[in-house]
């Protein structure tokens, strides 16, 4: 059973520390932090989530840059502890609205209160935000969200944040609106992680979608909610035909497998693909699903890296948005590691779209790696950059150093924000548009021609597409819906002032092929790998 639970900041300070069983000697937090910080076992540089030091098992997850750690001496189920830690983080987030170091420090008494009820003597008791409500008496001290650094693309690269938490709603489940009246709201979010691998000729090698339907409920009185999925949805296909794309020519969505939150009742699921649930308070995943059915990827990415002389190479990345122009993708980042000896780069960015802000942008930038003074300047210049620079390896003096294209995008950001535009616009890509990025790289060592392509890549891309299609959506559910739907934030939905009698949230699901028809969809974390290869290097 769990012996201790603690939360450490990125610098290793105890923010919360709770000893449940007194079996683990003092100083465990310090031992843990040192071990994680300087992990050097098995050639790996990153500590695994579970490890053992002197008979004490340290199990941790990283959430919002904080370490949530549990220690134990017994041979416990690792999955149980990891799920529990993740859940604790989410419960805390439900209560504080925002989960970060600042909010935790301000509300640590409330967190202690929660921990007291969540775990007793090392045994998990309850993690239901709703049940906990009756035991919690501290009022959350809200952190000023506006002052937080925006959860830009940078946050996506933080290790362990495979799934970016919903950012739009940062309200505590126990807080009340200034007017005293509580808003009846529920937010539904579909988050998909798309992984597509293209060969150099553009042929799709693998494609997979891992999706989650996430809800965040602020409804009172436990109303029942029905969630209708595509009626032609089917689940499960023979494992043998998982990669048999021919069979998927029909319009039906076929999920390989899915699982559900425990509150979901599947009584009528087989009949009309409806999930019935009484949503518990706070944020939770209604359903996780996985599909390998063929789908049209929303973006095409072409990457080319060419040698241009002894110490130089040029990288060209083209991104084409293969969706309708009425839809706009946000927070796009593209990253691609470049050869390790890259000393400087010079890049330009072109987008071929007639759109006010993105008409023609040509920005150039030059930076020398290892020049510590300049790095510091950047840190001062913009907070966001700091993280990126760290990731990019500026802080290390060695030449093992990857440049992420995120970095470029961020630089545009800064330049543009100086000229008064907001960064969100800059990072948008409108459907049908095409963008090209050229970067000239200079190497500090002589390169071996054929290796550049091998050392660079794969290209990785993250994006969010909120689809503003509310009117069509409403038509889809036959007037049963008496409230109004407002789209707010990044694809979160608000159902406001619902008639208590017939609350139903209908037809909310994705359909890969006819996207945007009657559903809104939000996609995130597209994960695309394009093995960059030169023509002559194709498979033998």
């Amino acid at each position, binding site marked *: 059973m769990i012996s201790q639970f603690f939360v450490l900041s990125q610098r290793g300070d105890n923010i919360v520390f709770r000893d449940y069983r007194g079996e683990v000697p003092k100083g465990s937090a310090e031992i843990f932090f040192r071990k994680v910080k300087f992990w050097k076992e098995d050639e790996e540089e990153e500590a695994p989530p579970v490890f053992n030091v002197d008979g004490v098992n340290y199990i941790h997850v990283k959430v919002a840059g904080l370490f949530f750690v549990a220690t134990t001496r017994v041979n416990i*189920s690792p*999955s149980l502890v*990891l799920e529990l830690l993740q859940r604790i983080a989410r419960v805390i987030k439900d209560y504080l609205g925002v989960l970060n170091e600042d909010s935790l420090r301000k509300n640590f*008494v409330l967190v202690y209160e929660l921990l007291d009820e969540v775990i007793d003597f090392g045994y998990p008791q309850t993690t239901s935000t709703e049940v906990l409500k009756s035991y919690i008496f501290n009022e959350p001290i809200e952190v000023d969200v506006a002052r937080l650094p925006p959860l830009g693309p940078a946050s996506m690269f933080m*290790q362990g944040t495979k799934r970016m938490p919903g950012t739009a709603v940062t309200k505590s489940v126990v807080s009340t609106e200034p007017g005293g009246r509580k808003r009846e709201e529920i937010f539904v979010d579909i988050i998909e992680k798309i992984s597509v691998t293209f060969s150099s000729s553009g042929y799709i090698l693998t494609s*997979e979608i891992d999706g989650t339907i996430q809800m965040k409920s602020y409804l009172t009185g436990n109303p029942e909610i029905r969630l209708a999925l595509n009626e032609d949805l089917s689940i499960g296909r023979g494992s043998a035909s998982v990669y048999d794309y021919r069979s998927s020519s029909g319009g039906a969505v076929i999920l390989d*497998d899915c699982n559900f939150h425990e509150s979901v009742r599947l009584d009528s699921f087989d009949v009309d693909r409806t999930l019935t649930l009484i949503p518990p308070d706070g944020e939770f995943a209604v359903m996780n699903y996985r599909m390998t059915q063929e789908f049209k990827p929303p973006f095409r990415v072409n990457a080319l890296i060419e040698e241009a002389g002894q110490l130089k190479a040029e990288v060209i990345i083209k991104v084409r948005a293969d969706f309708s122009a009425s839809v706009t993708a946000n927070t796009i980042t593209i990253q691609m590691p470049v050869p390790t000896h890259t000393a400087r780069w010079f890049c330009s960015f072109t987008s071929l779209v007639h759109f006010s802000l993105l008409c023609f942008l040509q920005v150039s930038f030059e930076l020398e790696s290892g020049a510590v003074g300049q790095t510091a300047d950047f840190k001062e210049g913009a907070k966001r950059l700091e993280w990126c620079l760290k990731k990019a390896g500026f802080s290390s003096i060695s030449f093992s150093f990857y440049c992420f294209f995120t970095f470029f995008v961020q630089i545009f950001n800064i330049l543009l924000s100086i000229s008064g535009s907001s960064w969100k616009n800059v990072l948008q890509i409108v459907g049908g548009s095409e963008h090209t990025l050229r970067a000239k790289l200079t190497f500090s060592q002589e390169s071996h021609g054929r*290796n550049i392509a091998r050392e660079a890549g794969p290209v990785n891309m993250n994006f969010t597409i909120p689809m503003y299609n509310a009117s069509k959506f409403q038509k889809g559910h036959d007037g049963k819906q008496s409230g109004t739907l407002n789209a707010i934030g990044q694809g979160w939905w608000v159902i406001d002032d619902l008639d208590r009698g017939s609350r139903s949230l209908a037809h909310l699901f994705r359909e890969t092929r006819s996207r945007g028809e009657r559903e809104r969809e939000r996609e995130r974390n597209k994960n695309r790998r394009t093995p960059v290869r030169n023509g002559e290097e194709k498979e033998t």
Partner: protein
Amino acid sequence: MAPPPAPPQKSPSPSQPSGKSEVSDLKLQLRQLAGSRAPGADDSKRDLFKRVISYMTVGIDVSAAFSEMVMCSATSDIVLKKMCYLYVGNYARCHPDLALLTINFLQKDCHDEDPMIRGLALRSLCSLRVPNLVEYLVAPLGAGLKDGSSYVRMVAAVGVLKLYHISAATCLDSDFPAVLKSLMLTDPDAQVVANCLFVLQEIWNLEANKSEEASRERETLLSKKIVYYILNRIKEFNEWAQCLVLELVAKYIPSDTDDIFDIMNLLEDRLQHANGAVVLATIKVFLHLTMSMTDVHQQVYERIKAPLLTLVGSGSSEQSYAVLSHLHLLVMRAPMLFSSDYKHFYCQFSDPSYVKKLKLEMLTAIANESNTYEIVTELCEYAGNVDVPIARESIRAVGKIALQQYDVNAIVDRLLQFLEMEKDYVTAETLVLVKDLLRKYPQWSHDCIAVVGNISSKNVQEPKAKAALIWMLGEYSQDMPDAPYILESLIENWDEENAAEVRLHLLTAAMKCFFKRPPETQKALGAALAAGLADSHQDVHDRALFYYRLLQYDVSVAERVVNPPKQAVSVFADTQSSEIKDRIFDEFNSLSVVYQKPSYMFTDKEHREPFEFSEEIGNLSLGQEPVGNSPRYDESDKDLLLSTSEREENGGPSTNGPAASGYSAPTDYNSSLVSLSSQTQSETAISDPGMPKYTSQMTLAIDDLLGLSVSAAPAPPSLKLNPKAALDPGTFQRKWGQLAVSISQDCSVSPQGIAALTTPQALIRHMQANSIQCIASGGQSPNFKFFFFAQKLDGPPLFFLVECIVNTSSAKAQVKIKADDATASEAFFGLFQSALSKFGVL
């Protein structure tokens, strides 16, 4: 929490004051507020308490303010109370005298009107961990267990466990376990039931080593009655309690196949749960239940594949790591079943390296004729990965697949392409692999050597790679024109070579090269031997000296010794024994799977699950109950195999009688709640007087066995075996090697025994029940091999080691016994024989 004064190097920041002045300042302010009833007093108290708690969190000792905190705690503000409880719980153990101050107000709060306050106070009272305050705990706990509020009962149940850890005797004397047991079977609140269950489990697990009764109590937790009762309520439990229940069910030994299928059907929908812990716990139940049913076991694998893959894809990378570790275990056990799912194990860009590493291992394991090409192509992409450890790992994976003999031709080409990449670490890894490949497939030497010969030895720095290159230079010097000269230049730099491994290889390579091309190498060999003789490393020195003398003695003999014709290696040794792998599999859904080590390798003794023991007891009880008392209950095969004498001896007629008669179909339990509880009470009532009888029967049984079987041998009647004997495999192996065989005998096996031996587990469990532990077993029908050991109960720890080979087709068993004390081996053999005979062997 941490050492009292904060370390001086800590910079004083507003959030982390370090000096004592802050603490005394706090004390002063608290004292001023203590009696205050002013309107704002609670708010300022809150602020002060918060500061105290925050100091406590960062590790500053604020225990000096203990009495002030207690003085301030007389308040109706629940937030303040909670902070105070937290504080008190933290410091009471180090200040037992001060803790006494808190008892008063905690006890008062235990009688508060608000169930919340009662619960909180009870929890804090039990968390004080002060041994001499135990007397104050019993009454509030007793009241708490009967409280009307489920919250208080929930807290009280855990409180019993806390009390047990402070003072086991007090806890047991107050008869709390019995109360918990009835609460577990009757309470309407699922969380109370769950808490009772785990508290009882922990208490009996710890007590089982001390008393017979406790181990019997523990086995009743695994009885069909309780397991079914809890399974029927499983949907009421929250997900964490479900994990716990499933953990219990995994230990349950089903009576027959219907039992197995009932449980599996009931739990089927748990596989669709979004919580990975629930799914894994369910899978463990499924796997363990079907252990003896090969075809169903395989179906289980097919069934669990999809949910596991979905879990890998959902959740954070830490969660998918835990799931992936289990998938890894399953893949390693049955790679064939996963060979078509290889694309799921492709690494993704954003995967952390610990996930990638697992995936690479899985890809290696599932490679077969049909998918090798795709897998190797994918792995080759990773070789240029920016993540160097992963790049290395993937090159190794390619090599391992090549060694598995699939599509070697293409793979060798790829490996050779790696060498052309001219990246140091790629070259290094590839060289090691090419060396291994050549040892297995000498026919490829021609192609490989052509490429390897082009590598400049200056680019190879890593000792392993350098050693591999030097080995190849020596082995294939006849095909590499430059070999003697490369070796010569390497030998010239002898002093700069740090790794002894490389120098050793250099010596051998020089020798080999000398035999093939004497005139060119003679000088280099001389230099190598001279340098080797002067080397400070013992092994290098010895090898040089050995070679030198060998050459002096006779050159042709030396050639036969150093460079004999070699046979291709067919299989490289597997690093992990199958015994260890089985052990890990038995501990499915635990840290063992993540560490890839069985639990005894990383947990200390007192925290280890006494699993062998529990199974042994559970088995025994399961055998006896239905036979003696429940005629409408289908007898399992195993029961039929028990000889009549054992039924008479062990079927303790009354101990579990009333409970056993309550057996009925699983659905009955909910409805017959009331009757169940009354049964439980009667059962507990009976168990006490029943106990001495039970033990006497046990000893009688053993004496009886001795008399029965060892008629001829003058057995020392005092030989009793330690039921909890422990021996680690390493020691077993060493002992086995050291000791001489004291008894070796062939026996015949009865048809019943053969029927029962569908899996080795059947015999193992049976022998465990007779205090003979199995340390290793294996084999497929018809040949099974077992290694057992047992320990003498009294006196010095003397072990008996047994090797038992059973051939079911010829119905023969061969037993070899080795003993620390050879004189006692006859007696032990008697015990062993009688145990076997009860199983049907002999």
